[in-house]
Structures are given as C-alpha cells and as structure tokens.
C-alpha cells in the first residue's frame, strides 16, 4: 500500500505539473525535498542522542522496567503478544507520555527505541507485528494536552480565547484513539482465529 501511495503521489504530481505548464516545479520540489530530508535527519541527531543517552540511564537505573511494571497491567492488554517484562513496554510508555505532554522532540527517540525493542521480538523482520501496529495506532492518535503550536498561531492571529479549542481537541482525539483501539482489537482477534 505504501508503494502504491508513494508512486501515485509522484505520478499524479508530475502529470498535474505538466498539465498546468509548470513542469519546472517538479525539479525544484524534488531537490528541495531531498535537502529537507537531510536537514530533518541531521537536525534530529542532537536531540536523538540526548534522549537516547538519558533513556539508557533510565534503563540501567531500572526506571524503564519500573514504568513498565507500573502501567503494565493497563497497557499490556493492548499488547497481548508481548512478554510480561518486555523492555518495549517501558519505551512505549515513555513515548506516549511524551506525546501527551507535547514533548515532540522527546517522543520520536523514545518511539524509535520502542520500535527497535519490538523488532527484536519479531520473527519476520520485514513484516510489521501486531504489537507494532497497535503501538503506531496509539502513537498517531494519541492526544496532546496542550497543542502549544496551534495555540501560538491563534495568539498571533489575535484570538479572543486562544485556548478554547483545547477541550474540543481532546474530545476529537479521544474519539479517534478509542476507535483505533477498538478496531485494532477486532482485527487482532479475527486474525488470531
């Protein structure tokens, strides 16, 4: 499906640019995007190293395991395929907490760490496991208590009440997350039998 979407975006983009008589946009965008990819990845190196360093400390201090044990009973219901003391659970919890607090630059390193831990328990290394899919569904539908960026935009646009959208945002994400968990649960149950 990714292959198809990637190709479709590329082909339709080029065709539309050609029809609009602005084919040079394609060249420019492709080059700029490639550069942006490098900037993004290299820009991540610093924060990524910082958080993975701290994560290592947290692991060796027994924090990650303690977190997993604390929230384990709740979160393990969502990940029935994982071992009880799987180190992935701790990383998953850290990632979700960072997401909720809106600490985007901490969330990514924790999330990638969680993926690496999940990959260690994967019998088919090129295929997503159910635990990975559940984790990513949670991750992408996870709520953020304070959507700081958009509030800043609203403040700048002189909103009378910049934070009034927090309630509705939490409600809408909550619905999305709940549905993702429910649908994932049923897919998992069906594919087991």
């Amino acid at each position, binding site marked *: 499906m*990714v292959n198809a*979407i990637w190709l479709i*975006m*590329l082909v*339709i*983009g*080029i065709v539309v*640019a050609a029809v609009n008589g*602005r084919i040079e946009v394609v060249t420019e965008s492709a080059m700029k*995007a490639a550069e*942006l*990819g490098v900037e993004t*990845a*290299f820009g*991540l190196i610093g924060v990524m*190293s910082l*958080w*993975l*360093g*701290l994560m*290592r*400390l947290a692991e*060796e*201090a*027994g*924090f990650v395991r303690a977190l997993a044990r604390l929230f384990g009973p709740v979160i393990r219901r969502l990940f029935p395929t994982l071992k009880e003391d799987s180190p992935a659970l701790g990383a998953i919890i850290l990632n979700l907490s960072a997401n909720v*607090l809106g600490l985007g630059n901490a969330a990514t*390193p924790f999330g990638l760490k969680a993926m690496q831990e*999940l*990959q260690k328990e994967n019998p088919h290394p090129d*295929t*997503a496991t159910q635990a*990975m*899919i559940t984790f990513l569904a949670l991750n*992408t*539908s996870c709520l953020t*208590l*304070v*959507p*700081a960026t958009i509030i800043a*935009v*609203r403040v700048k*646009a002189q*909103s009378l*009440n*910049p*934070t*009034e959208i927090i*309630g*509705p*945002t*939490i409600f*809408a*994400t909550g*619905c*999305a997350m709940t*549905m*993702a968990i429910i*649908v994932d649960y049923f*897919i998992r149950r069906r594919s087991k039998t």
Partner: protein
Amino acid sequence: MSVIGEISRWAIPFLLLIIPLAAFWRKVPVYESFVTGAEEGFKTAIRILPYLIGMLVSIRIFVDSGALELLARLLEPVFAFFGLDKELTAIIPLAVMRPLSGSGALGIATQLIDQYGPDSLIGRLASTLQGSTDTTFFVLTVYFGAVGIKKYRYALKLGLMADLIGLVMSIWIVHKVFY
C-alpha cells in the same frame, strides 16, 4: 490549563535531573552510560534518512504541483453529500495534508486562521483538526523505516481511519460547542 502548561514547562528539566540522580544512586556509571546510549542517536538518525528523503520528495511534488488542491476540489462533493455547509470545504486541503506533512499542514492551518479569523468556524475547526490528528503517513514511514519493516499490513489503514474519525469528530464537536 495553566497547571498543564506548567507540567510541560517542568517536564524536561525534571527528567534531566531525576534520571541521572536515580541512576547514580543505583551505582550506574552515569556519564559512560549516557554516552553509550547517545551513540545510538547518530545511527538512528542516519537510518531513517533514506525513508525521509523518499517520502518528502513524493509529498512535495504532489503538493507543489497543485495536485493536492485538485484532490481537495474533487472531495468537495463528498462534503456536500454528507449535508455539510459549503463553507466547510475550506478545511479539505488541511484534512488531506495533515497525514502527509506536519509542517505543510501547519502552514495551511496558519493560513486558514489568518484568512478566516481564529474565532471563526473555519479558524476553530482548523485549530481543532491540527491538534487532534497526526502526520500518520509520515510517522509510519519513519518508524517502520528505522527498523527495516517493509510490509506494513493494516497499519496505514488503521492510522488513516483514526485520522478520518478525528476529522469527523472535530467538525461535530466544534459545531456542538460553539454554535
């Protein structure tokens, strides 16, 4: 609200303090362990590089060529079909962009908020939508890419479904709360 804001403000300093202290207390060689962990940062960032570039190139061409706008216009009848206000169609480009690119979506949301006003229907909806859905497509590419997963199975469908529900519920709740 201010309580939550304070928590966000203190979270990182707190973690930076408490984790090394706890590790020291557990007799972990703190500095050496930190460095060992940090080493992985570089490797991970480099590992996701090709996936980032591949995806960004395709997305940028799709957006910059005007194909996104075209898709948004094609989706207008779908909105009309569900009996939604014609005014709401202004939100479609944001809804389509949101799963693809975080910075792209923020750009559209900012423009909508400036154009319609932050306290208008479209302004409130754009704000809610921006906060309640994620860059699903992008996140999946990077996270799966980082560990070399090629077959996503139903992950993308599940994530995009959650985004769609986020969109529908955003429209519903904004009407319910403000109008």
